[in-house]
């Protein structure tokens, strides 16, 4: 069975990437193993804050933000009755996305061309650009 990694951040392009993925999977006879991933940035002041508040509080913060970012994608996949695993990573997005793809042995990455953080004139967002460079597998970019 093919394994797909779909990286989302709650933005419109990443939502459309999920739609595209669903259509893709619909054509495959035996379906696919889907890994849904959202990557959270490390918070600034990381070590100072964590020494007072503790690592768990920060992890909880990341988890909540991550689940919020995953919500739309999860709803779409649930409505389409597609099985998936969901993950929340922390760190530099492109690096973490490619790390997951490698670790899970994914065959393909799906993602939006741009995300929430982008500036208007760029054709391709910085994360997508880096993923193309670093990815060990083919990348499908959805606008």
């Amino acid at each position: 069975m093919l394994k797909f990694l779909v990286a989302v951040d709650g933005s419109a392009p990443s939502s459309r990437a999920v739609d595209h993925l669903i259509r893709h999977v619909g054509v495959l006879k035996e379906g696919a193993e889907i890994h849904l991933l959202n990557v959270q940035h490390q918070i600034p002041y990381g070590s100072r804050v964590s020494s007072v508040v503790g690592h768990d509080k920060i992890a909880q913060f990341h988890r909540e933000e991550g689940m919020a970012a995953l919500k739309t994608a999860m709803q779409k996949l649930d409505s389409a009755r597609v099985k998936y695993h969901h993950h929340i990573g922390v760190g530099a997005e492109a690096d973490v996305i490619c790390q997951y793809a490698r670790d899970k042995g994914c065959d393909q990455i799906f993602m939006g061309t741009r995300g929430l953080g982008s500036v208007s004139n760029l054709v391709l967002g910085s994360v997508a650009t880096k993923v193309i460079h670093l990815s060990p597998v083919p990348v499908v970019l959805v606008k």
Partner: protein
Amino acid sequence: MMEFLNELQTAAFWTGLLAIIWVNIILSGDNAVVIALAARSLPARQQKQAVIWGAGAAVVLRIILTIVAVELLRLPWLKLIGGVLLFWIAVKLLVPEDGSDDGVESSENLWAAIKTILIADLVMSLDNVIAVAAVAKDSFVLLILGLAISIPLVIFGATMLMKIMDRYPIIITIGAGLLGWVAGDMMATDPVLKDWVDANAAWLHWAAPAAGAAFVVATGKWLAARAEAGRREVVDLGEGSETGAPR
């Protein structure tokens, strides 16, 4: 009044002001973030209370500590100690959290949250105050301005500061370097050393700050790189598996 207006015209005032604003953004932000995080898990009404108490305590602490710090920094040895403290704080700013800190016992009620916040306030106000006092040096105006600027940042600044730092992490690097500069300068002017330095090694007045800044940035970056490399395993905060009907 004339004195004040005269002071406004010196370059030293404006660079000092810029430095103080920068230092405050860096060192008030973490206080604000802690307050926001500690209050997050509380129900809405209690969240407001926690933030109000926490920010209020931070303000009071800052005022008291500023007065104390200015007096203390006149005493021999204290600038040296303060300088070392600032170096440590500055380096830690550049190191990401490593997943191993337990912090204060984390529980979900209002008092536990306030306790966390008060401890954070104490620790974080202290270094904010030391840094501002060190940058302000003899200028009373800068000291008051420094204090005044930090207050709204601590109270309202968490979300905005987190977003800014996230988008422009260079702000933290420059801020850490600035703290290193201030620490170096502070140490070179400690009453114990001051006379000797002025007589024999006046070049330390620029060399120490420069070395301080370079030291902080180099050490911080090195430690951060080591932490990154050491992190082999993939962080996954999701639950792993979710189902719709199987296809």
